[in-house]
């Protein structure tokens, strides 16, 4: 086959309008989000004292941190799904929630006496935290990786990791509204490993699934 012949075939095929990456990722996030949300509401549910909790800075900061993780991962996933991705910038942006968490941990350490640090870090239900965040991530991650197969990731593993952070950020945001451990110390000690585990699995999956 000559290259001109291939071009004939491509020209004949170019009438079809492909679906944009933004639309594919949005659909995946919507479907995965509905699945995770349904699972969350049927098994865990929002904590009963959510109204009072909203008036405490620790709870608000906790939810804000997971939302920032979700937000930056959303941007990074969209960026990294393309061949001309700016990987350095994506890495910097993804470090943002960690930096934010660092600041809030510092605040907690400053405002609370040393003898409560340990209790707040260990919390009341760390095992449920780990199990919930990883389990709630599964559906969104699957949907996102499927959508990203249509992309052309510059670095398949990194793109997979971003999708993992996005799914993990979504799961963590849901779980944060159930969890009664609000201290930044708890978030740093348990949310980070849970989300990191999801990102690690996603990176491994991405390096296989997202090659093009």
């Amino acid at each position, binding site marked *: *086959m000559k290259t001109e012949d291939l071009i004939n075939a491509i020209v004949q095929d170019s009438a079809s309008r492909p679906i944009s990456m933004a639309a594919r990722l949005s659909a995946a996030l919507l479907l995965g989000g509905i699945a995770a949300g349904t699972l969350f509401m049927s098994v865990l549910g929002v904590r009963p004292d959510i109204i009072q909790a909203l008036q405490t800075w620790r709870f608000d900061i906790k939810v804000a941190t997971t939302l920032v993780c979700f937000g930056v991962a959303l941007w990074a996933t969209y960026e990294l799904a393309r061949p001309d991705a700016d990987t350095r910038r994506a890495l910097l942006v993804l470090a943002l929630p960690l930096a934010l968490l660092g600041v809030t941990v510092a605040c907690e350490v400053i405002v609370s006496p040393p003898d409560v640090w340990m209790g707040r870090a260990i919390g009341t239900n760390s095992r449920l935290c780990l199990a919930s965040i990883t389990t709630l991530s599964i559906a969104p991650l699957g949907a996102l990786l499927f959508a990203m197969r249509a992309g052309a990731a510059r670095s398949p593993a990194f793109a997979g990791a971003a999708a993992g952070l996005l799914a993990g950020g979504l799961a963590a945001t849901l779980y944060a509204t159930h969890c009664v451990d609000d201290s930044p110390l708890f978030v740093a000690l348990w949310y980070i490993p849970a989300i990191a585990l999801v990102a690690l699995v996603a990176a491994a999956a991405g390096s296989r699934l997202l090659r093009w």
Partner: protein
Amino acid sequence: MLRGVINRGFARYGLGSEEVEDVMQETLLALHLKRHTWDDRRPFFPWVQSIAQNKLVDNLRRRGHRAQIPLDDVSQTLAADAPSAEMNGVDAERMIARLKGRQRDIVVAISIEGASAREVGERFGMTEGAVRVALHRALHSLAKAFRADPA
């Protein structure tokens, strides 16, 4: 224009003209099948370049040892004239051979014989839309065959 750019870029890596043609065809396929990954607010050329680069690296990796061509071979390749029609994209020929029955017929009719989707539809008793769908799938299969080729 694209051809010139890709040719120049690939010649630098010591690929023979046949291999250049293969990488070129794979790149063209990827540019087409992944066109929705270009964000129209961004410059077009870097996007094209990154796809071409990815395909070149893939090709070199697949060929492994064959990428290290001894100098004698290079000078012979350089001495040779522009690739003849028969030499163009030897791999692509093999890739087409891997397509299944009707898909292959459609690709051959449209690409090599230059038929339109409607003509092909009349020939095989299919609607024009069905031909287009089959062609689109065939191009995806072709890209996959390139990727899976151990060469």
